[in-house]
């Protein structure tokens, strides 16, 4: 089947002599940058256009709701970890930063739990795919706390219990219903 390609000729606006010479245009550009430079250097703080947010002094209140921060592991009603070690997060993780070793739980209704759950924050690219992949609302990145710089690499490995200590209660059921966010509402 022959394909028809429609070509719409575009009328180019011819440049004037001064536009071709660039000089006035460069001057206009310079005027913009110099105006910004002057305003952001010499005027008072509140009149500046600076949009940089200085964390952590400025806090995180202006962050969007879906901002991704440090990981945390959510808890069941009885305080145990919600994670069932299904490895969906470690499978989807593009940085291969999640290491899980599953264990057999004493409670047959739980059956499988993460005996080891370590996130290598050095490798983590904070993409949030682990949260999306989690079928159990067990891992969240809603702490609002940035990934911290550190002096010692060993502190970058966040173990299960550490992430559980940041975790909160989740009663989410299938389809994400009842997944309330009662803590870390910043």
């Amino acid at each position, binding site marked *: 089947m022959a394909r028809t390609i429609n070509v719409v000729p575009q009328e180019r606006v011819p440049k004037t002599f001064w536009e071709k010479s660039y000089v006035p245009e460069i001057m206009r550009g310079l005027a913009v940058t110099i105006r910004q430079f002057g305003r952001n250097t010499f005027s008072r703080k509140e009149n500046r256009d600076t949009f940089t947010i200085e964390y952590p002094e400025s806090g995180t209140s202006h962050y969007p709701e879906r901002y991704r921060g440090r990981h945390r592991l959510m808890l069941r009603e009885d305080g145990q970890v919600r994670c*069932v*070690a*299904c*490895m969906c997060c470690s499978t989807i993780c593009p940085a291969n930063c999640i290491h899980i070793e599953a*264990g057999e739980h004493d409670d*047959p209704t739980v059956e499988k739990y993460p005996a080891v759950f370590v996130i290598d924050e050095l490798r983590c690219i904070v993409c949030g795919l682990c949260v999306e992949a989690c079928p*159990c609302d067990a891992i969240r990145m809603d702490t609002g706390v940035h990934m911290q710089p550190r002096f010692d690499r060993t502190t970058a490995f966040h173990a299960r219990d550490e992430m559980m200590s940041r975790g909160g209660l989740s009663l989410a059921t299938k389809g994400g219903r009842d997944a309330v966010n009662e803590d870390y509402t910043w």
Partner: protein
Amino acid sequence: MPVLTINGTEVEVDRGTTLLKAAAVAGYEVPHFCYHPALSSPANCRMCLVEVEGAPKLMPGCYNQVNDGMIVHTESDRVKRARKAVLEFILVNHPVDCPICDKAGECKLQDYYFAYDAQESRMRAEKQHKVKVYPIGPRVVYDGERCILCTRCIRFCEEITGTGELTLADRGDKAEVRTFPGQDLDNDYSLCTVDVCPVGALTSRDFRFKRRVWLLTSTDSVCTGCEMGCNIHLDHFRNTTERYRPRYNPAVNDYWMCDDGRLSYKALNEGRLEHPMLNGAQATWHTIAGAAASKLAAVIEKNGASSVGFVISPQATSEDLFLAKMFAETAIGEGVRLFINGNDPGSSDELLIRADKNPNRAGARLVFGGLDGVGDASALADALEAGELEAVYMMGTELGAARGRVEAGLDDVGLFVLQAAHQGGVLLDAAHVALPAATHAEKRGTFVNCDAVVQTVDQAYPPNADALPDWQIFMKVAGAMGHKLPFTFLRQIQDRMFEASEAPEPEETATEEAPAPAE
């Protein structure tokens, strides 16, 4: 022969063929749970229902046989609606715990749900609860909730092993698979029930929760547990073998393999000899090949080749053994004392388990033209005790019952070169030169099984640490001794080897030409 039309395609099949198989010939897969090509057909899952024109109801494809002039539809709306209904019915009580379930990723129910159902559950009542972790046998765990009562495992134990431990207990939605009182699912093939289970109801204690199956890569290989050489899928993840699964080969093992063989993968990962060792110190291949060569040459020069004991391994591939033969003949020289080590004979049965627990003794026999002049491990021990050997060059660490005597004898030997994939406990300590070899998962090669079937293994992943395939080690050491072995690729060795022996070349495409019937 009957000619029938399946979805508009005319096929001619043998009388007695089931509709399901006929559809497969026509190129249509009919979904099924309870049907297994090696087992009888109870037609109880109703997943394989197909529409036959003229028949008032849909017919189970796994049970009904073809008739001349039949017009069958396997993809009609009616069939699809039926499949959807069957799946919905199964899922009434099947828990959606795929995140926990080990079968997720290779689960028939999961696959068919996405292919034919893919709707949210309309079931509002509580699901039936049963025992989740029921210890049905020493190697198998049963989950009653996940079971869809296809009875494949029951039929396997009745028809294949003939042990018949399993049965269905209770009725309706309370029905569960149970063993007969006083029995365990403890036959030698019990882990095959895990394979035949279409869902995650039966799980292997060994593999349970260890690795998600979608992370595994599968390589075609051969089990080295005994001389049967069952064909396997070697499933590995990040250069570690995680499990064996039987691979269909009607000439050897059909769909099955024994539990001992299945669990023999553990040896691939444990106790490995990682680096070349020279008198207990780690060395490089460059220095170690030179050191082994000069030490060996010194012994040969001083006491002659007859003072060297060269121990071949029936665990090695035929290519490795062929190079071992060339090495012994050229580098060590005429008169070298040949021995063969290996595991002691064990139990056997009529199905798959063979007494000789070494995968390639037949190959060694072919390569060396019979093993008449080759002593076994106890002969090696005798020779050591008699002080006839000044040097021992040993492939592999399997010594069987003679292990203690050999180990004691090796203490007095002037030179002990160990070329093995494993440390072998005391053997590594006794070795003056230790050369790390690759396991069969880490190299390509050929095994000859007890029925003289020549089978190839594929390389699943690169050799662990510094290890090399045995044939490359032989070439290194021989080269350092001034006897260059003229090979670069395994293929060249194979050409020479098959030329030298009468063994037929393995037909690598054999399985591809006749694809395994869908399980």
